[in-house]
């Protein structure tokens, strides 16, 4: 076969009369410059749409932004893209059947949500927990705080251009996820609590694994601290950005690290102790300036404190029963349900009829990683709540976004939005 040559036709339209490529002048001619097709924009405000599919909005948040040049004049947040009607669904479910729904609200700290709901249901029914269950729930809450803050730290540092802390933070989160999997069989949809107890007890391997985590985790925190806290870019992008004074923070009902970064020393674990948090030694970090940088410092220190609480909880983890000894609340072991008539009846009644709550209502607020997660349950005496209300901390914190961002640059809006630490599953519910 002979070699084939292909005649290429060079597509150079700009040839001069001699067939050479025409040269284009590299500098603008001295005469009147050609007007570009853009309108004169001075004084005109611009409408920018951010999201709902945008990596810096941390989910399906949509922000419509009015810009004057690069300055944010107005922010109009749109939420609801992930609305799943959890509260409505809860009205059609038994108390224990609602627990899987709580996983899916703030899906970055599922175990803490499980605990929040179970505590409210238990207050409604007047149940006293066993000592072992109380300590295990503290472990669940603090593990959640660590993974939630790690996700916050990782994604926020990416938003502000630092990639390395993201990898470190997510590695630590992965280790907790492995522990959660060891405990519950699920990494994210843990559903670890039950009304009156827990879904499962922890194994010795889990305890050893958590102990190892607690010993090695501070090293990562110190590394993140070394990379970010005195980093000129980080400091420049976060200090003095998105400031909320203490008064404003209270008036906007902010909670959690957002409230504390503004200088309000309020932590439900200290001020309205639940799960015997008042018997643990830990400090509540409080900011001074209420800006993005202080929120970072508060969350970083909270990770240290959570680690401290985990260590104490591991030391005191008592033996003994996990669940309350009430066969009307807690399912009997399957083997007994299959062999013992009485146990089978209890099993049947719980599965078919559910656990009935007395008439009344209960509100329990717990200190979730995002802020105060409130669970408000109203019962009319049946096995299904009349109303299950989640007080969503990130929804309420997000409402202050326009106040914080207006007057800042568009790039600061990204930093401020990141500092709120929203999770859309909870904002939209």
């Amino acid at each position, binding site marked *: 076969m002979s070699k084939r040559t292909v005649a290429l036709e060079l597509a150079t339209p700009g040839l001069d009369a001699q067939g050479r490529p025409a040269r284009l002048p590299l500098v603008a001619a001295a005469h009147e410059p050609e007007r570009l097709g853009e309108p004169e924009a001075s004084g005109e*405000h*611009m409408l920018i749409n951010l999201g709902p599919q945008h990596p810096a909005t941390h989910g399906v948040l949509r922000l419509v932004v009015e810009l004057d040049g690069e300055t944010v004049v107005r922010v109009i947040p749109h939420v*609801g893209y992930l609305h799943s009607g959890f509260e409505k669904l809860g009205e059609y479910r038994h108390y224990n059947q609602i627990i899987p729904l709580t996983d899916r609200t703030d899906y970055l700290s599922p175990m803490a949500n499980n605990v929040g709901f179970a505590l409210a249901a238990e207050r409604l029914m007047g149940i006293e927990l066993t000592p072992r269950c109380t300590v295990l729930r503290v472990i669940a809450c603090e593990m959640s705080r660590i993974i939630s803050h790690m996700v916050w730290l990782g994604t926020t540092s990416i938003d502000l251009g630092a990639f390395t802390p993201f990898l470190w933070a997510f590695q630590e989160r992965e280790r907790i996820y492995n522990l959660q999997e060891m405990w519950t069989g699920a990494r994210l949809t843990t559903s670890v609590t039950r009304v009156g107890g827990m879904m499962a007890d922890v194994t010795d391997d889990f305890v050893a694994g958590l102990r190892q985590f607690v010993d090695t985790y501070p090293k990562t925190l110190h590394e993140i601290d070394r990379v970010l806290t005195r980093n000129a870019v980080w400091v420049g992008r976060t200090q003095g950005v998105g400031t909320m004074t203490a008064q404003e923070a209270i008036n906007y009902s902010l909670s959690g690290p957002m409230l504390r970064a503004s200088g309000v020393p309020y932590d439900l674990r200290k001020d309205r102790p639940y799960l015997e948090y008042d018997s643990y030694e830990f400090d509540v970090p409080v900011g001074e300036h209420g800006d993005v940088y202080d929120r970072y410092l508060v969350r970083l220190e909270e990770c240290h404190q959570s680690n401290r609480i985990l260590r104490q909880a591991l030391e005191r983890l008592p033996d003994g029963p996990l669940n309350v000894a009430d066969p009307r609340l807690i399912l009997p072991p399957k083997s007994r349900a299959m062999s013992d008539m009485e146990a089978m009846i209890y099993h049947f009644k719980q599965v078919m009829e559910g656990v009935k709550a007395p008439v009344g*209502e209960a509100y329990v607020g717990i200190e979730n990683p995002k802020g105060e997660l409130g669970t408000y349950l109203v019962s009319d005496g049946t096995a299904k709540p*009349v*109303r299950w209300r989640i007080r969503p901390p990130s929804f309420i914190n997000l409402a202050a976004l326009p106040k914080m961002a207006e007057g800042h640059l568009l790039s600061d809006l990204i930093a401020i939005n990141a500092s709120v630490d929203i999770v859309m599953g909870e904002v939209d519910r």
Partner: protein
Amino acid sequence: MNPSAEALRATFGSAIGRAVESCGDTIVHVDRTALLEVMAWLRDTPGQQYDYLVDVTAVEYRDRERPLELVYNLRSLERRADLRVKVELDPRGDLTVDSIVPLWRGADWLEREVYDMFGVAFRGHPDLRRILMWETYAEGHPLRKDFPLRGRFSRAEQVRQALAANPEAHYSLEELSIAAAYDELPPDMRERLRRGERGRIPHSE
């Protein structure tokens, strides 16, 4: 029982309904005409100082005879005390109540959510529109007890409406009135803005 309940009754008299206790929380029922006054008093009076609004929500009971309740959870950060204030409304009557946004900015989105989910209108709210459901949602208010779990419209109707929706209608009129975008509006939208259907017209007045 929280002593604030007695103090309220001494100050406002008949505007305060019954006070009950449930699971350790004190619940005070307030007449809806006195709500704003009572809330301002609770926030600003020394000795009360309920400066933190925890939550605003509503409850409708399965019992059709019971009134719809608006629930305000208040907290005093200073005194570490909680108080729950309730306002009863007739679910089939006038669902209007004063907004407490003038007192707490944090009530803004919470009241919008109650409006969206229960249809309670808050008088004096700066921007009362749906928040979780979309603006053109026509099926009603999802957390009302007469609202079926799967929605009021059939699945076929829901699909038909979704397909018929204008995918270009990304922005509300208010957002479109932001200066540069205004000139690019179709004439009918400009006309609606001129008639005052939400939003400000740039360069007007």
